[in-house]
């Protein structure tokens, strides 16, 4: 491979000023870029932990009988920790990492509104994660990530369950502080002249997410407070035998956790809008529709919680919640159609980022359709607590959120590190992940409809064939993750310099060096009036000016295919 013989002026300049050492990332700092990377690396670590746990779950489920674990309790601990870690320590903080890194840059700001609070919110996460894992030495939590009482109160003896609740409490506080920081930043730190409707769609997504975080997470905090009191102080909030109410938890928990599933996916929507538009060189179709539908989802998301409780709820309440749940498919559908409209007729470059974005688009639709199926009461009563549900939420959380995270990683890695990621490895990673993902989770639909309950270690022998397919695919999926982890590190050593704007994108985070200097921009950056105005003469001139200022957008050493992509950059999609 070619080496960089003559460093480009812009790149050389930044290397002197912003060379960060590895140790800088392990220290308390208020720089949002370092905090963003800290979030991302921490969550990637927990992604591996959560992944390892589920590999054990799938190993156990290869056969209908117990083999890997000795008893049901151990199995319960495995999937409880898998779910909790993946949600609270991987997807939510990973998106917070993207938000932290990108929101100030996209707004042309020097930092978040409250840099100190930002650092504080991050540093709550590692101790909470450690506390949760330490539960293994005190009788780990085993009531599932939903932690329904009385399972989590009367039938969970170990202190791990209490530690679990405290850890979630801390993570919730971290989320709230991070969320209000985002809202204030978006409201007050926009560059002069940038209206809300000129913001990149990722910012809209982070804004909608943060509103949910600030408004919904305290419900969980309230519920957890009562749960901890039940476990520690001997109260009986959730024990009907002593005057408590067992449904109280389910209502409070889902009043948080249904909005929270949108916390876990709306930032992915934002990433998708950026990646699809940039890599198909076409303006986003229906900018306002995408921006506002996030807010609609955030709002309607608060009215659907009881669809998780169709089997425990008063029957008369089922229909209203069925209707609201189905209504929420409308704003989501608006997004999907807008994205298809965005890439339709575009100059699509199948970079790794784009492939993962397209993967999201296809797989998330399946998850959305099974979601509408589950919203229908008669169908839900049939498949409640079966593998159909497991399949549904993995299609939206893995096929949605995780693929969006991958798309984001490939898209912004050049900005964050200053180096290109290896595209060939990226494509290998995509295809293995995509296929293995499908064969891991699609057969679960069948298992669920055939009646296999979730959260069991022992199952009826006739389910073994499908379970073996699922497990083997899951192992491949697990291994495929190491390709991207390897790529992330390998590309750092390979040092293929990226240049300030390798994708020739129009949003502001690209209008500075890669990685950006300590104060993000040289002087005050000028934003382009339409963040997705690809293909216009004005966009072409804007990028030309940018090159004059910062040096070539991308280095001559880029792979031919990627280079072609960048060259084709400002051409209108139609020509």
């Amino acid at each position, binding site marked *: 491979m070619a080496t960089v013989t003559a460093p480009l002026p812009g790149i050389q300049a930044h290397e002197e000023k912003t060379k960060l050492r590895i140790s800088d990332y392990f220290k308390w700092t208020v720089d949002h870029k370092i905090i963003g990377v800290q979030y991302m690396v921490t969550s990637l670590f927990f992604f591996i932990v959560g992944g390892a746990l589920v590999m054990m779950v799938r190993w156990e489920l290869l056969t209908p009988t117990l083999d890997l674990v000795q008893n049901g309790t151990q199995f319960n601990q495995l999937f409880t920790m898998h779910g909790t870690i993946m949600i609270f320590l991987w997807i939510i903080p990973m998106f917070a990492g993207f938000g932290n890194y990108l929101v100030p840059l996209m707004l042309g700001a020097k930092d978040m*509104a*409250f840099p100190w*609070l930002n650092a504080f919110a991050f540093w709550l996460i590692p101790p909470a994660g450690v506390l949760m894992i330490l539960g293994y030495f005190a009788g780990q939590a085993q009531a599932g990530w939903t932690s329904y009482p009385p399972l989590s109160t009367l039938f969970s003896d170990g202190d791990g369950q209490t530690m679990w609740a405290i850890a979630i409490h801390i993570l919730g506080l971290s989320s*709230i*502080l991070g969320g*209000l*920081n985002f*809202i*204030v930043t978006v*409201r*007050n*730190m926009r560059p002069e002249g940038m209206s809300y409707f000129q913001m990149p769609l990722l910012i809209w997504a982070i804004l909608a997410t943060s509103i949910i975080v*600030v*408004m*919904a*997470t*305290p*419900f969980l*905090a*309230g*519920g957890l*407070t*009562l749960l901890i*009191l039940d476990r520690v*102080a*001997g*109260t*009986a*909030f959730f024990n009907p035998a*002593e*005057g408590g*109410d067992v449904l*109280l938890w389910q209502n*409070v928990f889902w009043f948080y956790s249904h909005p929270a599933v949108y916390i876990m996916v709306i930032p992915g929507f934002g990433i998708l809008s950026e990646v699809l538009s940039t890599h198909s060189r076409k303006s986003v179709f229906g900018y306002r529709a995408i921006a506002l539908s996030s807010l609609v989802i955030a709002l309607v998301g608060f009215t659907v919680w009881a669809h998780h409780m169709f089997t425990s709820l008063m029957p008369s309440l089922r229909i209203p919640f069925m209707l609201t749940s189905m209504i929420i498919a409308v704003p989501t559908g608006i997004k999907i159609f807008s994205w298809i409209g965005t890439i339709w007729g575009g100059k699509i470059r199948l970079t790794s980022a784009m492939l993962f974005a397209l993967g999201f688009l296809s797989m998330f639709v399946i998850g959305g359709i099974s979601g509408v199926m589950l919203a229908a009461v008669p169908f839900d009563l049939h498949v409640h607590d079966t593998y159909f549900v497991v399949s549904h939420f993995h299609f939206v959380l893995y096929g949605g959120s995780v693929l969006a995270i991958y798309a984001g990683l490939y898209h912004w890695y050049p900005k964050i590190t200053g180096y290109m990621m290896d595209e060939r490895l990226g494509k290998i990673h995509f295809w293995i992940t995509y296929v293995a993902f499908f064969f891991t989770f699609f057969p679960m639909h069948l298992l669920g409809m055939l009646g296999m309950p979730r959260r069991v270690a022992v199952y009826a022998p006739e389910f073994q064939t499908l379970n073996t397919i699922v497990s083997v695919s899951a192992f491949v999926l697990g291994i495929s993750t190491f390709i991207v982890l390897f790529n992330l590190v390998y590309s750092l050593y390979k040092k293929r310099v990226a240049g300030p704007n390798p994708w020739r994108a129009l949003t502001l985070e690209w*209008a500075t060096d890669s990685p950006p200097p300590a*104060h993000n921009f*040289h*002087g*005050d*950056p*000028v*934003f*382009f*009036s*339409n963040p997705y*105005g690809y293909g*216009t003469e*004005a966009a072409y*001139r*804007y990028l030309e*000016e*940018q090159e*004059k*200022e910062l040096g070539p957008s991308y280095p001559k050493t880029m792979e031919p295919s990627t280079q072609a992509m960048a060259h084709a950059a400002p051409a209108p999609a139609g020509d």
Partner: protein
Amino acid sequence: MTDVSIKPVDAHAAHDAHSDAKHEAQRNDSLKFGMWLFLASEVILFTVLIATFLVWRVNNGELVHQVHEATGVFLVSVNTFLLLASSFAMVMGLRQIQLNNTGGLIKWIGLTALLGAIFVGLQGVEYTILSNEGITIYSSEFGMRFYAPTAMHGAHVIFGVIWALYVVMNARRGKYSSKNNIGVEIFGLYWHFVDVVWILLFTVIYLL
């Protein structure tokens, strides 16, 4: 579509007095807005705890009346008055610093902290009395729903007292002035919030 050039602006040149003032105004606005968002999330946290009481209260009115008759509301009324007075002290403190009187600020915020501390102390006395009558957190349907929200509120008061002392400490170092008192104002938002929550708790738990 007119802005297509990237102006090479020197970051230091932009730092004149005007932009400093603007920057400070923006920062103050951010702090206040951030505090309001935080308080909004606190409202929701207390909503869960108060709703837990209210939903149960609807079906157990008799039991609540018995508790009310057995305990009376004298002590808690005194306590409520103290907390209201502390909010008044808070307002006076902010007014003093707006008049650039740091000494007045220290006195009034000190009084705020003192009244808050007495409130917590009397709450402890009340808890002891109730416990002696058999209303504990673990043995009474009323008890658990009573202690959870009031103790959560008490924790907020304790945090507020510590914050008030921190404000006093800053004031003694001369950190605040008539132009720069956002730190006091933010604390004031929090303290008034804690006060309002108490009025709600007092009404819902003791009076209804």
